[in-house]
């Protein structure tokens, strides 16, 4: 049976160079230290390095996916070992998957996302033997590079969305003029705002313009009582 170094295993599983992502490398090494991932001593070269048996690839694969959501290696180990912790993680992962609109720009979750959550929520499926469906088109660790987890990202994103939210709420409530005031502010800072939000702001501005024009037309054609 083949053995791998961590770097080889990551390259084979995900197709990127582990050395380029020191944060992920640290996290994976922590998982080796906390014995979630078992590595054997290298008996062939007798150099002071350890090798990953092929059997452990699944554990490594699942652990890497979970690290995308939960950057703390201790937490990831708990998800493998503790049923309650795993259920909690599944619920949180579900929230993120279900809430995918707000995350769409950061991470492209694919169709596997629901299966990922389902398997995670089924404690009978052994995470050391059964490979989770990768819900990501690109591993978040690669996109985000730093030590931010997807969960933190989601929180930050909700916070940054509040401006757009109040605009949308006014718009849906029929408060076109107030929505248009928000829209003007967003359009003025168009480079700093997400493109979808700017599109929405422009749409609201057009709607407001059309509504004012309608009112003027009614005044003109139907007359206005003073």
């Amino acid at each position, binding site marked *: 049976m083949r053995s791998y170094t961590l770097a080889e295993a990551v390259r084979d599983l995900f197709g990127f160079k582990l050395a380029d992502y020191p944060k992920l490398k640290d996290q994976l090494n922590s998982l080796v230290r906390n014995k979630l991932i078992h590595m054997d001593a290298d008996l062939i070269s007798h150099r002071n390095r350890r090798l990953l048996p092929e059997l452990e690839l699944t554990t490594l694969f699942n652990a890497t996916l979970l690290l995308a959501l939960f950057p703390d290696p201790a937490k990831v180990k708990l998800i493998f070992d503790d049923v309650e912790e795993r259920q909690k993680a599944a619920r949180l992962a579900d929230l993120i998957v279900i809430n995918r609109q707000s995350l769409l720009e950061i991470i492209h979750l694919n169709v596997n996302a629901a299966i990922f959550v389902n398997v995670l929520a089924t404690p009978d499926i052994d995470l050391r033997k059964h490979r989770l469906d990768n819900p990501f088109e690109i591993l978040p660790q690669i996109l985000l590079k730093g030590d931010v987890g997807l969960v933190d990202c989601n929180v930050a994103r909700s916070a940054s969305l509040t401006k757009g939210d109040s605009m949308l709420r006014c718009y849906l409530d*029929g408060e076109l003029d107030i929505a248009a005031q928000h829209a003007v502010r967003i359009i003025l800072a168009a480079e700093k705002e997400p493109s979808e939000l700017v599109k929405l702001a422009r749409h609201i501005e057009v709607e407001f313009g059309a509504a004012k024009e*309608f*009112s003027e037309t009614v005044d003109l054609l*139907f007359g206005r009582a003073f």
Partner: protein
Amino acid sequence: MMLRYVPMLLILMLPKMVTAETNRTTLIEGCAEAIQIYENNQQYTFKAAIMASLSEALRAGYCKGVIDEYDRGHDCEGDWLKRARYVAGYKDQKSLPPSTESLLRGACQS
């Protein structure tokens, strides 16, 4: 005998009758909508735009156009709003004036 031409005549007249019927009900609906839009615009200004659909606005414009056009050829009292209210008054009524012409004449004399 001339009588055998009667069904043929009726068939020929059918499209015209249908058109007249459509015009009359559209006119009544349109005038009801015109009044609604007019009042919304008085009360809510630009929000009147979200309260009316495109087809409602189009029908309202149709009512105003028909009433204005009737005014050009006839000597009517009062403003268009009064006449539009008269026409809209037939909205939920079962028996309508026999034609658009008589409907407009009634509105003009109201």
